[in-house]
């Protein structure tokens, strides 16, 4: 692992993995003990998402390994480079239902990009090299390496890193450059072109080239939740987030466009709404590294397969010689004040204002990690940074409990960065045990719980689509989070949404928030949110993007 550049791993020890833990001391690899294997894998994901390096998690056989599964699925959905090392029962015991034996290879087969059950000690160098290669190459993803404990105990002189040479794959084929003049021709015919930016733009490292391209095109542009930060929020053509809880302007422009340029986005159902009515008038040009992502919900006219770091510059150079139509009128409509967000006086307004106040006070060097639920969408809607890796969340899988352990990984990767972890009261309790990790390591993570005493997003759907039958979403008997933090020796305090009624906020509230963000210690802020605050705009499931709902009926 050292040969692969690994200096930090996250994990939790147990029987079958003990020989590996025994070898950690003096190895040059730092191990961070979390308090649950799911915490370890989410922390490794946080580390990987913020650095672009491979995150590494390790766990023992059986329950240790199965506790990694949610994180592995998360990494698959969000294209996170991740290697999980799991201990396995002795080779001779495999298949006997031995104590803490699970077929981890089989369990994770459909969730991993690549996996191996190690059979001899001689295989280990090559398997490690190949595993790291697949984790970080092409569309990044998770890898599992399952090692029986007898092989972990065996000793052999390390003969040096293996220079793994991958076989040629058809999926490695690249567009040959002929695409550029075709896109130019499509642009020259387009009346209402738009651009959609996804995570692929960041993962490929193509953000500088993409920004130059978008500045040149100057067409209405929006981002998926994982594309946030790739385009500076202050760009005059930028319309914010698109999709189920996207902005009115972004969703409307996407519905009206006649030419959609997609840069590294999967076009999943949260982005498209009803796929049969997604961008109904548009031809689609799809820049994408992974051919498996093309045409999944809607056929594209022109796929541009390859790393965006190669294909965008190729397109840019062709554009330099082309004359493009004047889209001023279209841009004025799409980006105009007529389509600005409605000035809602709804119940969510204090929470949105709270997030605005918090984000505006963040130092320039910051990373925001959002958990999953209403607070995640509010945070995504209010996020205004232009840092490509500045907003991290579990987008594809939507795994509650992600944020706190992921923040551990982010803070360890970026010790000088202000790391703000925004959770809901439901999700925070799913990995609340990682407060112990935060305390032990003295990580100055700033933790926010948006506490509405409900599983808010589920409750919102119950309100809108299940006649307010709030079945099993009431969390009004939540524990006292401030007291829980205190038990972990972490300072915490509450802020009521009434504090957001003053314009500007009172000096006392301002100081409270500033001190919270500037503290060199971990801090917890519990914000009391209205129990029935809802996230709007909202595109109901199965509806077209143009069928947004803006407020409670």
């Amino acid at each position, binding site marked *: 692992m050292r040969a692969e550049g690994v200096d930090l791993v996250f994990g939790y020890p147990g029987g079958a993995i003990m020989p590996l833990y025994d070898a950690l001391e003096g190895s040059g690899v730092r191990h961070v003990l979390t308090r649950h294997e799911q915490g370890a894998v989410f922390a490794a994901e946080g580390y990987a998402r913020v650095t672009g390096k491979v995150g590494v998690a390790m766990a023992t056989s059986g329950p240790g390994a199965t506790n990694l599964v949610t994180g592995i699925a998360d990494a698959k959905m969000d294209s996170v480079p991740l290697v999980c090392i799991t201990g396995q029962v002795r080779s001779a015991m495999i298949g006997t239902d031995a104590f803490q034996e699970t077929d981890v290879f089989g369990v994770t087969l459909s969730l991993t990009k690549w996996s191996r059950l190690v059979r001899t000690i001689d295989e280990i160098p090559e398997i490690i090299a190949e595993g790291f290669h697949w984790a970080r190459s092409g569309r990044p993803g998770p890898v599992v390496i399952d090692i029986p404990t007898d092989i972990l105990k065996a000793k052999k002189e390390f003969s040096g890193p293996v220079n793994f040479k991958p*076989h040629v794959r058809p999926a490695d084929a690249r567009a040959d450059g002929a695409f550029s003049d075709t896109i130019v021709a499509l642009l020259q015919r387009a009346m209402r072109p738009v651009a959609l930016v996804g995570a692929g733009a960041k993962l490929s490292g193509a953000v500088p080239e993409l920004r130059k391209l978008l500045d040149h095109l100057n067409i209405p542009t929006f981002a998926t939740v994982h594309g946030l930060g790739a385009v500076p929020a202050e760009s005059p053509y930028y319309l914010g987030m698109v999709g189920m809880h996207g902005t009115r302007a972004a969703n409307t422009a996407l519905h009206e466009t006649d030419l959609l340029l997609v840069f590294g986005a999967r076009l999943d159902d949260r982005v498209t709404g009803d796929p049969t009515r997604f961008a109904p008038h548009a031809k689609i040009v799809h820049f994408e590294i992974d051919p498996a992502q093309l045409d999944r919900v809607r056929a*594209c006219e022109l796929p541009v397969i390859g790393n965006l770091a190669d294909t965008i510059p190729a397109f840019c150079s062709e554009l330099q010689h082309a004359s493009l139509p004047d889209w001023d009128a279209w841009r004025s409509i799409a980006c105009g004040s007529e389509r600005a967000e409605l000035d809602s006086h709804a119940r969510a307004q204090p929470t949105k204002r709270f997030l605005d106040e918090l984000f505006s006070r963040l130092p320039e060097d910051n990373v925001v990690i959002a958990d999953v639920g209403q607070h995640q969408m509010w945070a995504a809607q209010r996020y205004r940074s232009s840092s490509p890796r500045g907003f991290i969340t579990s987008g594809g899988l939507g795994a509650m409990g992600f944020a706190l352990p992921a923040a551990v990984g982010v803070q360890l990767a970026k010790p000088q960065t202000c790391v703000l972890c925004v959770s809901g009261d439901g999700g925070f309790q799913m990995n609340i045990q990682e407060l112990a990790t935060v305390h032990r390591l003295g990580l100055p993570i700033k933790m926010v719980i948006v506490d509405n005493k409900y599983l808010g997003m589920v409750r919102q759907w119950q309100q809108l689509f299940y006649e307010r039958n709030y079945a099993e979403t009431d969390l009004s008997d939540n524990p006292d989070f401030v007291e829980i933090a205190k038990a972990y020796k972490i300072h915490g305090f509450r802020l009521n949404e009434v504090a957001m009624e003053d314009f500007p906020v009172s000096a006392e509230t301002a100081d409270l928030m500033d001190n919270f963000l500037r503290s060199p210690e971990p801090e917890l802020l519990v914000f009391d949110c209205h129990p029935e605050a809802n996230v709007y705009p909202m595109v109901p499931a199965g509806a077209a993007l143009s069928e947004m709902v803006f407020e409670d009926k």
Partner: protein
Amino acid sequence: MQVFYIRYRNSQGALMRILNAVSRRGLDLTTVHAEYAGQDHIVTMLLEVTQKQIGQLYREWYAIVDVTEVRSTAARGHEEAAWTAHRPASESVAQQSARAALA
């Protein structure tokens, strides 16, 4: 019915990943036959699929690290299947789609 021929490196789990792309869609595997073929292996499958599923399966199989080639024919004949769009083989991706886009 459609017959699929998938060439793959016979490494751990490769065949299971190929089959999983079928089972996750709830498709019935009528016939499966896997065998050694030169340096690789080939699995042949008979499936009742829609045109859309053919495209999905092609792309998902090509995304498997150890898959090197995917082909299919209609079960009743030996002609190549109609599905050709966006096959991630290099040669035709840009030109074919470009023509379609400008049509």
